[in-house]
């Protein structure tokens, strides 16, 4: 399969959108484009399985490389392993759901869908890049549209939020770039430097360089994935963003960071990952616990989900920081699971908001009676968030816990227990929100006239729930998909230890 | 100490004294007059250096031209007797400070470098030489700058007229 299609297709879709007239054409094109993306992602999965089934054991499959800028040895090098395939699937699911929930976007719809599709292109490019420069390039491609999406179509204090988000993410990118440059200049292949992930992974970067540049790369990517204390863009950004943008932001964009932490920071600088793992654990644990407690005090549904994202993304970082194979697999599962789950949550919140015009928990009530479908979606998202078996959240969190516990260090154990404790707090805030919003008596008589979900909203929710349940009920396929990828990372890490 | 030296000191003191007065006088007309004296002093310094031609040019252009021009413009824009607005105290102090240190620094450099005349060969300035070299096209000729300056003067003249011309009332 030609992976470039994953970039070209959204690009063409985006261009075609520019030549459309009226909302109907625009959204039809966007829907077709995203549906084709989804089909391609699923085909990629099948072809990947085929490839593995016929005995292809190379680390990356469907590799393709061509020179982009020879003087600096930058190549357009793409390829996927199981982790990337999982992330691409996630992106495709979220994109189509995002397009569907924005079905009735009124203002500047052409630009809106253009940016959405453009953003997805950045995400795909990021996940398939095997060249650090192109990786960075696509990371940037994915950042800029967010600023516009929030700044133009947002609500509340959107300028502030858009600015904050863009600045913090740009700051993150800047750190990432320092880290990447550091890697680049510490490589030496026949006298030239290299950006190529596969080449860098085969050589040993000097320890001092790793210790110096790992924090840059990790914190830089960490900002994307709400690393404490750089998570403050998350609540403001999510709450001001339009529904689809929130879904993209939490569902895809935060995963760019997690993927980067794994693929670039941990994989390429294994010694430093060992050296700094306690810092990562510390920050991740703080993020988990403190995010959960901060969520408990929120009254705005979007803030609740945003803070819970901080907490849940903490699991990703915790999984990465624990440096055991199971925990890293868990981190990837958590990325996929959180992406789908939080997108669903935001979609449900968006649907509620578009009907009731409020997101305040105390103003809502009894919605299950008037809009049962949306309320059920909301409850399902909540239950997934609190880690109910049968949904993806459980699988991911348990894998992280199980993996973390394999690390026998007392401090790491303590961190694991604290992280486990957060599931109780999660239950508290999710039930509090769900109990007040969808259950209880109806608080406003206007609510009696609300209409339930339209076909597009139903479709969006069903697509996401399908993904969640597919992982929750039968996690083995995703686990098997991801494990070879994490094994490679573990080998890197094991080599790092043995070299010491 | 020779007479020449004494004369030099007198001229120098005159130049600097009137210069200082020119930049500190509170009435603008007086400032212009002190400037005039300072320029005349500089002409005297040229005389002292036996460069009569330059001294003459100095007097003709500066004293006779520019200062008169300035005085005209003062008449056009000001009431000559008025006190000028005082400079801000803070800026004055700061400028004084900056200027003093810059001067000390510069002079220190000059002093350290120590210019010594390479050869005591006497310097004679013939006006004919100036004329010849000015219009010569050889290696040390100044014909091109001369032409450029001519153009500049022309341009300045036209520019002055355009700028200063009253805009037509619509």
């Amino acid at each position, binding site marked *: 399969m030609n992976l470039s299609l994953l970039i070209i297709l959204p690009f063409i879709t985006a261009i075609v959108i520019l030549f459309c007239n009226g909302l109907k054409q625009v959204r039809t094109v966007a829907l077709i484009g995203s549906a084709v993306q989804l089909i391609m992602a699923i085909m990629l999965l099948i072809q990947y399985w085929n490839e593995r089934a016929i005995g292809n054991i190379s680390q990356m499959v469907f590799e393709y490389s061509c020179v982009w800028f020879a003087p600096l040895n930058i190549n357009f090098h793409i390829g996927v392993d199981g982790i990337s395939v999982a992330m691409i699937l996630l992106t495709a699911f979220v994109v189509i759901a995002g397009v569907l929930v924005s079905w009735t976007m009124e203002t500047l719809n052409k630009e809106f869908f253009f940016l959405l599709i453009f953003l997805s292109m950045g995400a795909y490019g990021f996940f398939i890049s095997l060249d650090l420069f192109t990786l960075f390039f696509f990371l940037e491609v994915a950042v800029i549209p967010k600023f516009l999406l929030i700044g133009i179509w947002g609500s509340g204090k959107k300028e502030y939020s858009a600015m904050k988000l863009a600045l913090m993410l740009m700051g993150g990118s800047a750190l990432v770039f320092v880290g990447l440059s550091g890697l680049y200049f510490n490589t030496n292949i026949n006298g030239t430097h290299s950006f190529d992930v596969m080449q860098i992974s085969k050589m040993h970067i000097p320890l001092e360089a790793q210790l110096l540049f790992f924090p840059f790369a990790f914190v830089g990517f960490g900002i994307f994935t709400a690393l404490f204390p750089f998570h403050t863009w998350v609540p403001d950004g999510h709450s001001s963003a339009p529904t689809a943008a929130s879904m993209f932001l939490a569902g895809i964009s935060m995963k760019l960071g997690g993927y980067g932490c794994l693929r670039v920071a941990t994989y390429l600088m294994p010694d430093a990952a060992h050296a700094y793992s306690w810092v990562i654990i510390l920050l991740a644990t703080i993020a988990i616990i403190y995010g959960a407690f901060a969520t408990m005090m929120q009254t705005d549904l979007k803030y609740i989900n945003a803070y819970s994202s901080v907490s849940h993304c903490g699991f990703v970082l915790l999984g990465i920081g624990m440096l055991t194979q199971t925990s890293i697999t868990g981190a990837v599962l958590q990325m996929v699971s959180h992406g789908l789950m939080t997108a669903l949550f935001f979609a449900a919140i968006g649907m509620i908001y578009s009907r009731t015009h409020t997101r305040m928990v105390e103003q809502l009530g009894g919605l299950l009676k008037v809009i049962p479908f949306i309320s059920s979606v909301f409850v399902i998202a909540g239950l997934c968030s609190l880690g109910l078996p049968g949904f993806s959240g459980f699988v991911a969190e348990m894998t992280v816990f199980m993996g973390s516990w394999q690390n026998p260090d007392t401090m790491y154990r303590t961190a694991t227990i604290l992280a486990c404790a957060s599931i109780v707090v999660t239950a508290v805030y999710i039930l509090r929100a769900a109990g007040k919003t969808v259950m209880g008596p109806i608080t406003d008589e206007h609510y009696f006239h609300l209409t339930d979900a339209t076909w597009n909203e139903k479709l969006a929710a069903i697509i996401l729930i399908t993904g969640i349940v597919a992982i929750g009920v039968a996690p083995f396929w995703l686990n098997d998909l991801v494990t070879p990828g994490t094994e490679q990372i573990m080998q890197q890490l094991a080599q790092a230890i043995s070299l010491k | 100490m020779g007479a020449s030296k004494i004369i030099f000191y007198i001229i120098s003191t005159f130049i600097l004294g009137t*210069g*200082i007065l020119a930049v500190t006088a509170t009435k603008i007309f007086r*400032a212009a007059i002190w400037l005039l004296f*300072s320029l005349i002093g500089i002409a005297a310094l040229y005389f002292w250096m036996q460069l009569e031609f330059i001294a003459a040019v100095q007097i003709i252009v500066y004293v006779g031209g520019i200062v008169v021009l300035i005085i005209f413009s003062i008449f056009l824009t000001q009431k000559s007797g008025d006190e000028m607005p005082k400079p801000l105290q803070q800026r004055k102090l700061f400028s004084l400070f900056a200027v003093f240190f810059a001067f000390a620094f510069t002079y220190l450099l000059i002093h350290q470098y120590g210019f010594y*005349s390479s050869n005591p060969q006497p310097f004679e300035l013939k006006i004919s030489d100036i004329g010849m070299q000015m219009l010569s096209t050889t290696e040390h000729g100044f014909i091109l700058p001369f032409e450029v300056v001519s153009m500049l003067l022309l341009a*300045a003249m036209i520019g002055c007229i355009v700028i200063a011309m009253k805009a037509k009332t619509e």
Partner: protein
Amino acid sequence: MINEITLTDILFVSTALFFIGVYGFFTRRNMITMLMSIELILNSVNINFVAFNKYLFPQHLDGIFFTIFIITIAAAEAAVAIAIIINLYRSHRSIDVEDASELKY
């Protein structure tokens, strides 16, 4: 004789004059007086040219030429400056630099 006075002495005069001009340029708020300060600065430069020429390179005339050109250009500059000042006076009824601060940001 002239040799009793070294080049450094003359340079002292010109430097001092230069900084007097600079001081005037900084502190004067009236544009015409600022122009006068510039004239002083130009003159101090002229002195330098002449003195260097006379003391260090008696066989050449380049310093003299520079002085002549500077005087010429100073004349042109003064003319233009005064034209600008008068124009400014017409629009602002003032030739105080503090009043003409549109040139910012």
